[in-house]
């Protein structure tokens, strides 16, 4: 047995079953939140706003909204998935199973990323109900969605191992990623900011990630697509290296 595919599949299906049991929180709640954004920003305010870079405001915010939900849901889903077995003690079985660290990550992160991609597509469909969407680069859009889902699920996995309690589990998605996403051009183009703020905003890594996704929709973004893609791949690389280090040192998983 050089690759424990049954083991990876067991973790993956277990996580997906957990998601189905809590479909209300996992899918309906984010969709409802997103719908509210559309109603408030898209319909109510958007009609009084000019188009941004030639895109109507309601459509302009769709990629940012998908990214916002994708970031926070990937983080909380993946972190909960690996945190809870440690909390309940069932992690003993994962640790004593003939699974390599890569296989454990594949099972948990793969499931979390799958849920995020489904969620992203559902929000996209929800958006299409409110505004007219023309996706300029659909293949890039799908690939970029997958890349972001994987990257943030990986970071979620890391948070789940690092967290000591449920508050810490919520800390990064609520207090780091959500503000950075709001300030990272999810709802506006950074061209709309005063020059000093534009420069400050460029220090926010989320800007590059959201800009890339918007490019796949409208062919333009706050920064070039190559730069965005580079940042996205770098983020994935950091996540992978970090997880590799965690398993190599046994950090918090094994005494």
């Amino acid at each position, binding site marked *: 047995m050089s690759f424990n595919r049954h*083991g990876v599949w067991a973790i993956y299906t277990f996580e997906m079953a*957990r998601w189905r049991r809590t479909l209300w929180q996992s899918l309906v709640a984010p969709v409802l939140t997103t719908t509210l954004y559309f109603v408030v920003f898209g319909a109510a305010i958007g009609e009084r706003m000019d188009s941004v870079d030639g895109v109507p405001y309601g459509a302009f915010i769709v990629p940012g909204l998908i990214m916002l939900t994708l970031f926070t849901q990937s983080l909380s889903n993946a972190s909960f998935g690996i945190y809870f077995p440690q909390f309940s*003690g*069932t992690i*003993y079985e*994962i*640790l*004593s199973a003939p699974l390599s660290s890569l296989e454990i990550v594949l099972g948990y992160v793969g499931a979390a990323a799958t849920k995020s991609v489904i969620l992203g597509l559902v929000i996209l469909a929800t958006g299409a109900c409110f505004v007219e969407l023309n996706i300029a680069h659909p293949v890039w859009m799908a690939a970029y969605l997958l890349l972001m889902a994987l990257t943030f699920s990986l970071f979620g996995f890391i948070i789940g191992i690092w967290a000591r309690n449920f508050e810490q589990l919520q800390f990064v998605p609520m207090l780091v990623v959500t503000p950075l996403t709001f300030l990272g051009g999810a709802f506006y183009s950074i061209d709309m900011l005063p020059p000093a703020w534009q420069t400050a905003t460029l220090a926010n890594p989320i800007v590059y990630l959201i800009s890339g996704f918007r490019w796949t929709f409208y062919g333009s973004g706050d920064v070039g697509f190559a730069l965005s893609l580079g940042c996205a791949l770098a983020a994935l690389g950091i996540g992978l290296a970090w997880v590799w280090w965690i398993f190599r040192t046994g950090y918090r998983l094994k*005494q």
Partner: protein
Amino acid sequence: MSGDAVLSIRGLSKRYGSGLEALKAVDLDIHRGEIFALLGPNGAGKTTLISAICGIVQPTAGRVSVDGHDHQRDYRQARQRIGLVPQELHTEAFETVRATVSFSRGLFGLPANPGHIEQVLRDLSLWDKRDSQIRELSGGMKRRVMIAKALAHEPQVLFLDEPTAGVDVELRRTLWTQVEALRGRGVTVILTTHYIEEAQELADRIGIIHRGELLLVDDKHRLMRELGRRQLRLHLLEPLAEVPAELADWAPSLEAQGTELVYRFDQRDGERRIPELLARVHALGLDYNDLNTSESSLEDIFVDFVAQRSGA
């Protein structure tokens, strides 16, 4: 010796980050098909030993080989042969019994086998509960679910960490019967316990662990003979001020203000002297309204054993 060893442990040590030396160079061979009881008080290192073998705790030093497979270099082969039932009831609340047992089989790299899962559940009297969520089950059933999970991948070696701690007498009996049945199917069972009667009832061999050191490993009968102590207690009708000289050969003691005459003896030869003692008591005209014999507790054995070692 190691020819028929299904599990071979050499120099296994664990020092926790806190500095606690939980295991001190443990050497142990477990024979194929036996039931081995690891006896020790709480905090002796029993769970650490099991955890280090199963991959839950990273050992500081030492080697473990499971059926010839090194537990770190060849961990897949080694772990596939091991089933673990931890002491605490760690279960998923919302999964069904059948789903959680099937999940365990998958984790250990085996394709689904509903027939085997059914057999395991039937053997543990869980088949009727197969579609129940685990949170609906009683504590005793949850423990059996844990055993079913550990057996789902058909392991050769099963670790039971304190299987009957906090379990009522009836369930304890049931579990003992089930452990016997496992042995009958060729599974090697290693259980930890701090109940001496559990080790006595089940085990072929017993190892005593104390403060991270495996003090001795021996055949059960020999060990109980060597180390077990018993006492005979006579409740006298009239208190005695001192032990009569005629009883000096037995060196009994007086307790409870002279109303209890207690004779302590080891299992090797003490028993044979009981009738003689009672005859002598009778001849002395000492009346008693009750008598009982009891075996020493594990704690007593430890105290004796440790005292013996430090005296030697």
